[in-house]
């Protein structure tokens, strides 16, 4: 199976195949023979064929994987190439103009109006969560096309707040 691994700003081609009781992986130019054992719902033991062993904690939400090993946390996105192409099309279609809530919370105040032009960094609204007021700022200059929330609304993380064009 061919996959793409995104780490930091790198896109790496990854190929995974079963090989005996283990796996054969090609990551970029390099090939590994790997033996991996599930040690519980989050803990895994991975061993390279030279015997080097890593105990790791793995958690994922959708394509976003978090792997903690030897005191480091590595965040990597694993996508299949078809899905990636679809996503790139969507991105270029301008879905990026939606400002989303980074966390769940309650809308305290709206600082802009529909139609208003804003500079990058302009405060758009105040979101209260965990007893803190957090100002959500415009990620880029533009015009506020639409506001999806009103003061007092409770929103989940990822909820659309305004459309900025």
């Amino acid at each position, binding site marked *: 199976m061919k996959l793409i691994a995104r780490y930091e700003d790198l896109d790496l081609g990854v190929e995974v195949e079963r090989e005996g009781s283990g796996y054969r992986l090609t990551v970029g130019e390099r090939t590994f023979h790997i033996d991996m054992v599930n040690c519980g719902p*989050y803990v*895994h033991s991975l061993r390279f064929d030279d015997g080097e062993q890593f105990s790791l904690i793995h958690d994922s939400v959708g394509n976003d994987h978090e792997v903690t090993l030897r005191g480091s946390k590595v965040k990597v996105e694993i996508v299949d190439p078809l899905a990636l192409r679809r996503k790139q099309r969507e991105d270029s279609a301008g879905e990026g103009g939606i400002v989303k809530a980074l966390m769940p919370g309650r809308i305290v105040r709206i600082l802009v109006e529909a139609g208003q032009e804003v500079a990058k960094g302009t405060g758009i609204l105040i979101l209260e969560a965990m007893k803190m007021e957090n100002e959500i700022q415009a990620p880029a200059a533009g015009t506020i096309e639409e506001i999806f929330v009103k003061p007092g609304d409770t929103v989940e993380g990822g909820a659309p707040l305004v459309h900025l064009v």
Partner: protein
Amino acid sequence: MKVLIANRGEIAVRIIRACGELGYGTVAVYSEADRSALHVVYADQAVPIGPAPSRESYLRIDRILDAAKKTGADAIHPGYGFLAENAEFARACKDAGLIFVGPSPEAIEAMGHKTRARARMQAAGVPVVPGLIEPVKSFDEIAAFAHSAGFPIMIKAAAGGGGKGMRLVSTEAELRPAYDRTTSEAASFFGDPEVYAEKFIEAPRHIEVQILGDQHGNIIHLGERECTLQRRHQKVVEECPSPVVDEELRAQLGAMAVRAAAAVGYYSAGTVECLMGADKKFYFLEMNTRLQVEHPVTEMVWGIDLVKAQLLIARGGTLPWTQGDVKPSGHAIECRIYAEDPMRKFAPSPGLIRYINLPQGPGVRNENGVYSGYTVPVFYDPMLSKLVCHGSTRDAAIARMKRALTEYRVEGIETTIPFFTVIMHNADFRAGRFDTGFIDRLLPLLDISRPPADDRRVEAAISAAAILAFEESQRVQLPDDGDSAWRRAGRLEAMRGPL
């Protein structure tokens, strides 16, 4: 003896543990958002007291007293925050025939109004921070003070404390927004919009002294805590003893704290907070008339259980120690584990904790408020748990904290754990060289660095993620896999209603 704990989170669990060890029954109270909270799990009984917002649950004196009556509780422990420094609540407990585990309502009142407390302390011969004024009635008064004293100044909620409801103002332009927001937060969090201002002392240390007094007039101190490391005026790392306080200075600080407490007839556990300049001159800041978040560092070094001592005192017992009986031993450090993402400007990170691995072993104490499978609600403080490490020396305690942080794993939400790892490795912290501005100066340098792509760890991580994604793709697609609709519904339920 049955004790109702009028609080939530790790401090409620802490008090339930102490009561359990004393053989006292325990009653938890909880808001609808807290049905699955650990304090509810661990208490002998649990009583609902209203919807999620604190104003409608944890701050409702009537409902808490009802719960006490219904369960036959004999005493109420308020923890910290919420009603802990509310004299009206302490008085209402007494009127209802309940033991309030804390000081007298009069002592709470005397220390609660920060500006009046300052006047009283000055009269008792306790040194106070220069520049304090009476609470202001309007923005003009605060502007006048700022112009006469000069920037920087601090605007503080008169009813605030614990780092809440205060703002540093360095320039004229910031003054109006800061005043508005502090006033609004003071009204919202403390039910009292009054604010005051004081001259801001630059590069100070924040030192506080633990005292313990009984109802028979005996008061002792248990040395100082170093609470200088703060972010947004919230303590993040505390230690006992302070690396800059020697035995002589400790005796001076202790004597000052005992004098301050005696001036208001104080009993129970209490903390006298001071600012200390580079010249080691110290000034009374305020007295916290309750148990402090960071009390465990004192407990580990002085060998005294402050919650058990509070309960003994509340029942009318006599302090079993004189000043000469108590001695510090070793060094303890506390890190407050918050549900905040240090890589995203400490944005709150509530949600489902999928997996948690707490550090264990010698000298490690977890004051935990959460567990694997628990969903951290958005309504309250982001503090999940406290990690406290004791060692024979400060270096040993830091080494132990570093080791413990390596074991500490929380999956599902982001926490401040990586941030503490950075602090424990910082050379200035290790040398004890810091002031209250340390964290803010450290933040821009906060590079919780990632290994390069050709590092073996990254290769292993990418391989593991790819293998698990591959295995996942080979599984039948299940309609109801993982995060069930049932649980999602429960989470949405908890989110409903005003905050």
